[in-house]
């Protein structure tokens, strides 16, 4: 009898108790002898009362349903409602069984959820350390190079020169192609040319512009590369490495400006 008390406390409701009783019977839910189950159920309710346990309303409602089912079973066979469903009124047994089956499915589903809940406690997401890129360049990485800025200047100049009425931009002795040729020769003779050296010989503003344009063209043609060997150092112009096995300046200190953002990429997690 003491065992009952323990059981009562864990029943979630009348359906739970019914399921327990069915399970105790060790028969299929559909085959269960509802009359016997009803008797047991009502016995349990009585017991709960005796033990002074508060009996929830739902248990009482279920008890009355079961009493009704039981009373029908006691009728002579020819007065029983046909189970085949050709009657207006449905057999209350089936309604109850259906409810029980339904409830049992969700009870099982709850068990599976509980398993997952426990399992999740043992699943650890990978939490990598913060990525650190080797400080190849100062923190606010430039997304444009100094060269981009020069390019912009040159654009402004070009446009401005074009606007100047009647003034021929290239009135001086230099054309862009001439300047390209000159630059090529100059750069062929030495490993690197400082940016300022480019303009040492210029005598007019248009020559500055032409020199600029020539430089841009050579870069576009991949004949030369423009480098800023280190932050805060002057821009250098070098032959593009494809030409010859570049003897040039120390290779690692002279990364092309255009690539200055890529840096070394040894990644440490």
């Amino acid at each position, binding site marked *: 009898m003491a065992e009952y008390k323990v059981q009562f406390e864990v029943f*979630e409701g009348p359906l739970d108790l019914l399921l327990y009783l069915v399970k105790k019977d060790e028969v299929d839910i559909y085959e269960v002898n509802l009359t016997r189950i009803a008797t047991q159920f009502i016995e349990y309710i009585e017991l709960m009362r005796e033990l002074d346990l508060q009996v929830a309303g739902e248990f009482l409602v279920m008890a009355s349903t079961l009493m009704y089912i039981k009373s029908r079973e006691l009728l002579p066979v020819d007065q029983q409602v046909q189970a085949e469903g050709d009657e207006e009124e449905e057999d209350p047994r089936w309604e109850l069984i259906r409810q029980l089956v*339904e409830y049992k499915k969700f009870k099982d589903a709850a068990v599976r959820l509980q398993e997952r809940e426990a399992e999740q406690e043992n699943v650890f997401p990978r939490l990598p350390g913060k990525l650190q890129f080797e400080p190849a360049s100062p923190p606010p990485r430039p997304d444009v190079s100094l060269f981009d800025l020069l390019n912009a200047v040159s654009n402004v100049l070009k446009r401005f020169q074009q606007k100047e009425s009647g003034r021929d931009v290239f009135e001086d002795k230099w054309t862009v192609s001439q300047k390209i040729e000159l630059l090529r020769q100059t750069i062929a003779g030495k490993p690197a040319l400082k940016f300022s050296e480019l303009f040492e010989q210029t005598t007019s503003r248009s020559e500055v512009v032409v020199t600029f344009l020539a430089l841009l063209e050579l870069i576009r043609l991949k004949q030369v590369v423009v480098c800023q060997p280190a932050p805060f150092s002057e821009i250098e112009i070098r032959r593009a490495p494809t030409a010859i096995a570049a003897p040039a300046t120390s290779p690692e200190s002279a990364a092309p400006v255009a690539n200055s953002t890529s840096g070394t990429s040894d990644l440490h997690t």
Partner: protein
Amino acid sequence: MELKFILEAILFSAQKPLSPAELREVLVDAAEHAEEDTARAFKKVKLDDVNAALEQLAQEHAAAARSYRLVCVAGSWQFVSQSEYAPWLKALVGEKMRPPRLSQPALETLAIIAYRQPLTRAEIEQIRGVSVDGVMQTLLERGLIEQIGRAEVIGRPMTYGTAPLFLEYFGLRRLEDLPAADELRRIPMQKPESLLTVEPGLATAPPDRLKEAGGTQPGESGSPASPSNGTTSADDGAVNAS
């Protein structure tokens, strides 16, 4: 460079789970900022391709059967360790901070909501056979369920469904991945003409129909409790064996 390896590398280094849309954003971002041509190649990558690559990755990692796997929880992907290595990971990082486990009534109620959403409190109580006021409150407070709308019936009662946290809490990718979802989810049941009182909300067919379906007509898939798709739980025998 293969898309799947790029996605793998991103997820490998990410500090939080990432959705396919977020992954694509990283790809687009890299295409815009990086100097490398390889990065530019994925400037216009399609979400479908990202999804397909992720699926393939997950399969590869499952097949490799190492100590970790790639999972999708609530639509976001992440690497997680296999649960059998928990003892050492607990030793490494300490116990996971998780709220207390759910009670049996809360789990039952949650299961009903998860499989049958959206539904009203009254419908839940009909299935459980008891009042659910207390557990509903708990589930709402823990953010596992939420109000979804109102039922178009008299009184227009609130309807409830699972909240986004639900999937996360149980490590589920989506609701469809709930165990035995096809069996338990609300199925528009063809009511046998003779049994007009069957509740539309009940997936379970009346016993005679069930027996028919299980025993002689497995093809009649309207019956959701046929033995063919039963669960592996031992208790099920009691329900299905006929």
